[in-house]
């Protein structure tokens, strides 16, 4: 089949609406969480091995660079979770109108900022 329709694949000429930005960040955060699971499994394994291992995990998590890594993984997870819940609600037909989608996107950002701040307080 020959397709002669014009294509615009120059993404720099397009401006994404807010719900689209929320959606692409959902994908990016998913990749981060997928890689972050390796770190979480490592810490989980160590923490259950012995009392010394458990102490080692607490020791690792007491340093600033690893605190930041833990927070980054946690924040990605929380973003993915919140945006995912919005996705599930929209699958049920909730918030599918133009205003609804925009409100849902703003709510996702708002909830994420609160959750990420709380996660920061918890880690530090």
């Amino acid at each position, binding site marked *: 089949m020959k397709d002669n329709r014009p294509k615009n*694949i120059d993404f720099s000429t397009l401006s994404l609406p807010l719900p689209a930005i929320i959606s692409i960040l959902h*994908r990016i955060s*998913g*990749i981060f969480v*997928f890689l972050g*699971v*390796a770190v979480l*499994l490592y810490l*989980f*394994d160590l*923490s*259950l*091995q012995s*009392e010394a291992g*458990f*102490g080692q995990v607490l020791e690792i998590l007491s340093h600033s660079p690893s605190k930041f890594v833990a927070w980054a993984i946690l924040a990605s*997870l929380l973003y993915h*979770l919140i945006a*995912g*819940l919005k*996705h*599930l609600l929209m*699958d049920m037909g909730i918030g599918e109108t133009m205003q609804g989608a925009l409100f849902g996107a703003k709510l996702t950002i708002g909830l994420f900022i609160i959750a990420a701040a709380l996660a920061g307080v*918890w880690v530090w």
Partner: protein
Amino acid sequence: MVTSVTNLGRSGLYDWLVQRFSAVILASYTFCLLGSFIAHPEMDYLQWKALYESNPMRIFSLITLFALCAHAWIGMWTISTDYLTAMLLGNRATLVRLLFQSGCAILVAIYLIWGIQILWGN
């Protein structure tokens, strides 16, 4: 009908459902674990070990591990088939995509085996 050979269920509808079903399991587990961390902020080794030696927690964790593997595979597959395309990469697209998918499959397999070992091996 064209069916893909690399997606989890060989059907988009099946993958769609598994992605949502696993998402609910993953969200429930995350809330349970965060809840227990908040309820016991000073959890020590013995409490932590006892939590993961109880059968309900082991079974819930194992189900979550399966859900994680399915969810991650479907997600990474979707991303790879959306962006690693001939339109963006030309002739090399299929090779690049298969390499990316192989890497993801290996990581998913490592998570699955490692996770089972942590939960049931100790």
